[in-house]
């Protein structure tokens, strides 16, 4: 009969209307500034640089200014200038550090390729998205001071991934230290045996372990290795229960 389809439609919308008052499945609004959805652990927005501790972020950046991310960044929004000197890193080796590290968030496309290609786990994706600005030249260009965030923060936003990275780094560092020790011991032994001092090997540390660190993740596919696992409590986001629930128009 003419009109039955229209009446069916009216019934469906009426159901949704009534449902919006009692059924959380039909009232999905999250009242943003006051309520927030839980961001999934994997969520990424803009990169940040990891520093080992919060007290001296500039001194403990993991980044060694290898400029791989600068080269691989598809929109070329990273600028790195190597330092002239070296600073000791977490395991005590002298490393270069970025004298200038800048990311133009007004260009960045949040593609995460810099994270994937970084052999040092020095750059990770941040989750802050409330960064609307009124001056794009100053507010949206992130210098290394703005980019540096401590490792504890990384643990806060990507716990699973961070734990994995820390575990890997620790084993690597341990291996490096042992290797360095072994090398030092071997050299000492060799020196003792030959008793001929070799010039320029006064600092045996950096030479051997350094190449080992970058090559390992680059040759293995970085993606599955760093694949983070979403926390179980992220999952309810796909079901309406986690979406803020019923919302009060008066609030």
């Amino acid at each position, binding site marked *: 009969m003419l009109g039955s389809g229209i009446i069916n*439609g009216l019934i469906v*919308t009426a159901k*949704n209307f009534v449902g*919006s008052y009692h059924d959380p499945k039909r009232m999905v609004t999250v*009242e943003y500034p006051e309520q927030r959805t839980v961001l999934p652990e994997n969520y990424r927005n803009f990169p940040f640089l990891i520093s080992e501790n919060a007290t001296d972020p500039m001194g403990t950046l993991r980044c060694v200014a290898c400029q791989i991310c600068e080269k691989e960044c598809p929109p070329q929004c990273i600028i790195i200038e190597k330092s002239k000197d070296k600073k000791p890193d977490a395991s005590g080796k002298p490393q270069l550090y970025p004298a200038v590290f800048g990311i133009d968030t007004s260009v960045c496309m949040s593609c995460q390729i810099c994270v994937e290609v970084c052999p040092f786990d020095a750059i990770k994706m941040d989750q802050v998205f409330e960064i609307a600005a009124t001056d794009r030249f100053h507010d949206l260009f992130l210098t290394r001071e703005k980019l540096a965030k401590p490792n504890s923060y990384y643990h806060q936003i990507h716990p699973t991934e961070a734990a994995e990275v820390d575990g890997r780094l620790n084993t690597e560092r341990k291996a490096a230290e042992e290797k360095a020790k072994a090398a030092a011991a071997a050299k000492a032994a060799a020196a003792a045996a030959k008793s001929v001092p070799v010039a320029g090997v006064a600092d045996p540390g950096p030479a051997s372990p350094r190449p080992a660190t970058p090559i390992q993740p680059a040759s293995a596919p970085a993606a599955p290795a760093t694949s983070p696992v979403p926390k179980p409590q992220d999952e309810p986001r796909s079901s309406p229960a986690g979406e803020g629930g019923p919302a009060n*128009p008066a609030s």
Partner: protein
Amino acid sequence: MTTAPDSFLERAPLELRDWAVQLLPGPLQWLAHHLITVVAILAVFGLFFAFTTIAERKLLARLQNRLGPNRTGLPKFSILPWHLKHTLFGLSQPFADAVKALTKEDIVPAAADHFLHFLAPVIVVAFSLMTFAVLPFGREYLPVDLDAALLYFFAAGAATELAIFMAGWSSRNKYSLLAAMRALAQLISYELPLILSVVPVVLVTGTLSTKAIVLSQGYWIFGFLPHWFVFTPWGFAGFIIFLIAALAESNRSPFDLPEAESELVAGHLTEYSGFKYALFFMAEYFGLTALSGLGVTLFLGGWQAPFPFLEFIPSYLWFMMKLIGMIMFFIWVRGTLLRLRIDQLTRLAWQFLVPLALLNVGNAAFWVLTTHWAGPLQLVRWGVSLVIVILPFFFLGRSLSAGYAPRTYRYAP
């Protein structure tokens, strides 16, 4: 019809007016009397318009599973400290919109017909307000008791469509022009079913006066069934036709062709900004309210209470409640339906509504002729009347929707 007329609530606004009028010297009293009526209508329906807009936005939002405006609150300059943290459920939203619209720059396109461009919103609001003059809002609340109230109503209502044409024409925008053409086609097509749907009421009551029409619906069958015309076969058919035609006349979805957003950008409003746009917006809602009010008056018993024991509620509140119900229905329809095409719109009018309305006039004539039938004949009367309504609906509907049907689909082998 026994208790309410003299209750305090029922009389209070009138008493107030009379008290105010008698303060003035004699020669001015007549003027003051009418001025107060006009101001009261403007104030009440101005506020009603404001809350209709927010109701529409909130109801539509609820239909769409969201909340709608809810955090407007009030400006902070007020001396009341309590609402600094309150948002008033967003009910102050229309006032924010009004403030904004009032202060917005008014742009008139260089090539537009400046005079008509200015005149159109004025006319549209003026005429849509004029229709309120003949609506009986309550037992004693009829601004002007005209003998030919219905004719006056339709005459004034039709002028608004002319203003829409003026707006579309004077803007000199192609979308506006197309919208103007559509508005004219729509006006001509739907004025007829609208009026024809009202004729049965006139036929049965024998009057064009809205007051008399409401009064003639004012008793209860068996003491509790309201004798509203919508509860008769011809009245029901008339009411449905009236509803459809009213939707079309007030340019509401699914007949919002002149303003068709997805096709003509904003139709006749495309070149209007600021307060002129707000006036059109206002007029649209005034027109809707007026037509709903007429529908309430003609078919839903006007200000009459549905049951005798509810008569203690003042008549004007009954009118308002019915009015709100009608408007909520219109909002519901808007949230559900899609838009017709212009040829389908006219086809619906001429091939479906007009024949149905004409038959319905015959039906009403039959109803009048058989007023004296009683007992089992009463059943025959109802049966025949129902058949006159349903059969044409069925056949005309079939011919209207011929060729359109859901399909079944095959799959690749």
